[in-house]
């Protein structure tokens, strides 16, 4: 057996054990009146779910449907945390969680199941701590590994519904394909900065459009929350909406004539707006969901290649880059040079190296101290430009040496290459490896890391 097969088998068995334990617990807990009357739920459950059960849309029957339901949440981040919390609170009987990341401090402003105390522990474990305290009744199934083409089917076939709470297109295509093959709907959401999107796919199974029907080809360069930023409540709203759509799918009987797929667009800033857009039906010949199309086995599909491996960009030779510690000694030696910071003005405003100040119009920060000039010219000024921006040319015309800094050390390599090609400072241009993050991590005096 391969490692992936063993992994799949292992997770199936764990799942079965958990299911049996829950059944046992619910048999033991089922309230029995002295006269022998049996209740459908435990007495604690009536109290716990009463506020939603008294709604005619839910009732006892709806509550029992939720209890019988098995929902898989893929990604326990900004979307998955609120979604899982509401599903658990509502009494969904079986909740599976897939994630292989560990909790980081930078997650906490939006990933509400995690806490300062669980930084460094696996997200699935951290989430379970919270969920079990919130509601001990559901069966929680941890899938503490990365979803992959070789394990997706084995995981999905034990669930009635999947929530796509991931953050990369390759996973979104994989989830959609696996959901079509296992005949379950997908509640898909995403968020970035101040916008969110929500759509229910393959619903009802076999009829509604899949992810590939809506987006046949992936975008060339998706922006992640780590790069683009995200406002906590924005992604929170989208996760809560996923839980809401999931509850409706689990409770409402399947319509005889499926309604057309709708995408909900949420924009939070500056004014709140929800917008509902009518989307296309299934695409004839869709490689994801058309029965007429002979499809490659999931395990043989390379989703990462399909979505394009993350752009490598320019890669400089090792001698064209300096480690933060080397640049530190340049500063300490007093050798005249210019430090060119190519982060955007917002990030420059969060923290920047001494010797610079901000205040010039058009977000250009420039200052001359005896030996050091620090200039902030956002990377966007370089992006797509065939020649150096005039301001950069002017600012660097007398430079003896230039060091280029960005956030993580990618953009700065591209700019370094451009400056060298333009003959700036007689070619004395270096990239500061790892950007200001690496600078922060190696600064003995401490420096903000964001």
């Amino acid at each position, binding site marked *: 057996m391969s490692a992936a097969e063993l992994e799949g088998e292992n997770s199936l068995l764990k799942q079965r054990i958990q299911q049996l334990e829950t059944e046992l617990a619910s048999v033991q807990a089922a309230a029995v009146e002295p006269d022998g009357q049996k209740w459908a739920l435990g007495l604690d459950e009536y109290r716990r779910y009463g506020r939603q059960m008294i709604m005619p849309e839910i009732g006892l029957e709806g509550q029992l449907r939720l209890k019988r339901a098995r929902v898989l949440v893929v990604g326990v981040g900004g979307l998955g945390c609120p979604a899982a919390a509401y599903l658990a609170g509502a009494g969904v009987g079986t909740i599976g969680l897939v994630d292989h990341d560990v909790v980081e401090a930078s997650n906490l402003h939006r990933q509400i199941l995690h806490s300062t105390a669980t930084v460094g522990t696996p997200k699935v474990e951290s989430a379970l701590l919270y969920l079990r305290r919130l509601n001990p009744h559901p069966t929680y199934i941890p899938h503490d590994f990365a979803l992959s083409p070789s394990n997706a089917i084995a995981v999905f076939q034990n669930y009635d519904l999947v929530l796509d709470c991931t953050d990369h297109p390759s996973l979104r295509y994989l989830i959609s394909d696996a959901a079509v093959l296992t005949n379950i709907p997908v509640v898909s959401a995403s968020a970035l900065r101040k916008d969110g999107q929500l759509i229910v796919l393959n619903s009802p199974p076999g009829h509604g459009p899949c992810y590939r029907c809506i987006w046949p080809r992936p975008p*060339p360069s998706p*922006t992640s929350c780590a790069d683009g930023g995200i406002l906590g409540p924005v992604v929170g709203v989208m996760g809560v909406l996923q839980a809401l759509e999931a509850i409706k799918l689990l409770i409402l009987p399947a319509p005889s004539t499926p309604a057309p797929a709708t995408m909900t667009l949420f924009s939070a800033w500056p004014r709140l707006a929800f917008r509902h857009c009518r989307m296309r039906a299934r695409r004839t010949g869709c490689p994801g969901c058309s029965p007429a199309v002979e499809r490659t086995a999931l395990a043989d599909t390379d989703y990462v290649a399909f979505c394009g491996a993350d752009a490598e960009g320019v890669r400089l030779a090792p001698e064209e880059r300096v480690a933060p510690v080397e640049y530190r000694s340049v500063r300490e030696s007093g050798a005249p040079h210019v430090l060119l910071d190519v982060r955007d003005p917002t990030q420059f405003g969060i923290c920047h190296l001494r010797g610079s100040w901000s205040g010039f119009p058009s977000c250009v920060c420039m200052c001359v101290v005896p030996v050091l000039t620090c200039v902030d010219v956002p990377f966007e000024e370089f992006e*797509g430009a065939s020649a150096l921006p005039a301001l950069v040319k002017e600012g660097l015309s007398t430079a003896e040496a230039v060091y280029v800094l960005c956030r993580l050390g990618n953009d700065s390599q591209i700019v370094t290459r451009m400056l060298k090609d333009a003959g700036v400072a007689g070619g004395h241009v270096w990239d500061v490896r790892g950007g200001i993050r690496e600078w922060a991590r190696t600064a003995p005096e401490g420096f903000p890391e964001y």
Partner: protein
Amino acid sequence: MATIPITVEFSGGLELLFSNQRTHKLQIPAQDPSGNPANIGFLVSYLCDNLVEAKRKDLFVMDGTVRNGILVLINDSDWELEGEDRYELQGADNILFVSTLHGG
């Protein structure tokens, strides 16, 4: 020359390519250069010539059409339901370009 009043909107980060402004009220020429009624295909090239930040045009169009990962909604309907780039613009149409989001 006759024009058509329409509203063009950008979201999901696309507004960053259009002066960071989400909503644009535009008067679009009623006919394209070859004299045919203005359609979405013409609107896209009009936006490329007049509205998009030139340096970052490649983030909006690729090979003459809207880039992968950008949805076009005509009066809140997927453009695929309306004839895609052959849809002929009508007065007061609302055309929304949305970049697909992946964060979560």
